[in-house]
């Protein structure tokens, strides 16, 4: 069991899991991906990022990958992280939970836009 709680899933942890859905990434890659997927609103600091990564590793939601498939020749040796099946399951359920919340919010006309 991770020492830091993942229930409820912290925002940073969810963003990291989400960032790893499409590809294996190293720390800086994760940070950039999170920045992109939040339109620049969230830039995970190094401490926060690696603290969350450690928690997710302990919870076996992500795992380290030694040599990623897309590692460029000559680049520094880095730790890459990959989503585990448990992590994928968790990120999906968390996304669905948020989607449910969105539906409720829209039904209450708090948010505008298409039905989710």
């Amino acid at each position, binding site marked *: 069991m991770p020492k830091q709680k993942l229930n409820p899933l912290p925002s940073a942890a969810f963003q990291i899991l989400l960032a790893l859905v499409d590809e294996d990434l190293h720390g*800086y890659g994760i940070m950039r991906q999170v920045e992109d997927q939040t339109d620049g609103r969230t830039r995970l*600091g190094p*401490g926060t*990022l690696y603290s969350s990564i450690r928690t997710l590793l302990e919870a076996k939601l992500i795992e380290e990958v030694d040599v990623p498939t897309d590692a460029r020749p000559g680049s520094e040796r880095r730790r890459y992280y990959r989503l585990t099946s448990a992590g994928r399951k968790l990120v999906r359920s968390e996304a669905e939970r948020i989607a449910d919340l969105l539906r409720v919010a829209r039904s209450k006309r708090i948010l505008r836009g298409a039905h989710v």
Partner: protein
Amino acid sequence: MFENIYAWLMRLYPSRFREEYGEEILQLFRDRARDEKGFYRRLRLWLDLVADLAISVPREYYYFEPELIGASADQRLGGLPSFVVIEGGSPRPEALLSGGVLTMLVLSTCSIFLSQAGHYTPRRTFNAASSQGHRYRDSSALGGQPSPSDSEVGNGTSQFGRSVVSGRALRAGEASNSEAEAFPPDSSESSQPQTQRPEGAGNLGMTSASKVDATERSHVIHAAVANLKQYYVYPEIAQKTSDALLAHEKNGDYDAVKEGGEFAALLTKQMRDTSQDMHLDVLYSQEPLPEHPLGAIPENLERYREYIEHNNCTFEKAEILPHNIGYLKLNSFPDLSVCEATARAEMNRVNDAAAIIVDLRENRGGDPDMVMLLASYLFDHPEYMYNPRENTTQQCWTRSPIPGNKLADKPVYILTSRLTSSAAEHFSYDLKMLKRTTLVGETTSGAAHSGVFHRIDEHFGIGIPETKPINPFSKSDWAVVGVEPDMKVNAADALDAAIKLAQAKLQKK
């Protein structure tokens, strides 16, 4: 350079975290520093990093905390103190060195402060006027004779007789007594009736290191008001005085007062200004005031008894001088229940004198019953003696005539000094007012206070008169101003002057 700065800041993280992710974190910093150039982006980078440190460092320590708590709890099961090793590796040599230097610095600073404290003699602010009355029966009864047990012995004295002074004030009174010996008073102060005056032998002054804040000031004011209304013998004046204090508080008159002694003196002055009663006072003691009377301790009582008997009840001399002048040097008015026999014996030794000199230059007070007994020898009929501490009762009359006494019609000279206090002033004042003596020496200390002590808190108390004594001699007594001698000479010359006066008087006969 930036990387070095960040690497240094990373030391804030727990070492286990650094070991695990230090290199990754630094790599991430390098990546960002490489990609984020220009003033704005670089500034944003550093803001991000600082904010991240502020959030993640405490979280990392918290992260390790459960382990520590668990480890300690396990160790404590045996009931023994535990020592938990947090770090796995041994400390770096530079860490040991800086730790050693820091420890030396702290120890040196502490030792310097301690040595300074050793030289500092706190001028305990037992607010002059305040302690005067309250120690009426305290260690001053011992005549201020140096004794390692003075203070404790003094405690016992309050147990005797009808003390109007709460024993709760005695400890501070003792402090002032010892202080008195160390700080001779400035005689010029004796002409300032509304300021703190030296008490006994001491100008107690104000304590410098005694700060009071707004909360305590307010607490003291309201406690003083409550005590006045509850205890002061004149309710209308109590109301008027209380209103004045509260008005001063409302006006912010106390806001600038930061020291306890100064604050007590100001309150005392304002209470006296309003009430015209010199017996009201607020006192401040840097030493914590005991919550309960100390005088009631039987052990102290017994020690007082032993001390006072060992010192001939502070009758230092009782002899006949040339020209048959009796000379009685009395350094306190000791408790009557202990010293009546001694007092009578000493008076008998000078019974045949043609004139008598009572030397009170080192007498700082004591028991009013002893005052009455000795005064009884100087009259051939009961005489009323005013005592600001007592309601007018039968106790206020001398026991004259005393069988076999021959001193009732002999000239009496009392020697005074600025140390002469309290009960000794009671004796001097009344005999002067009754025109039964000639006072020779200096103006006395002005320790007339009759207030009953009420403790407000650890450092403040208030003395409030609770009796309505009748003073047939004058509107005011010796409170604050002291007793003026008939013949003003330096205390050191008083005996010679009195002898000359006595000789002249005797020659006329």
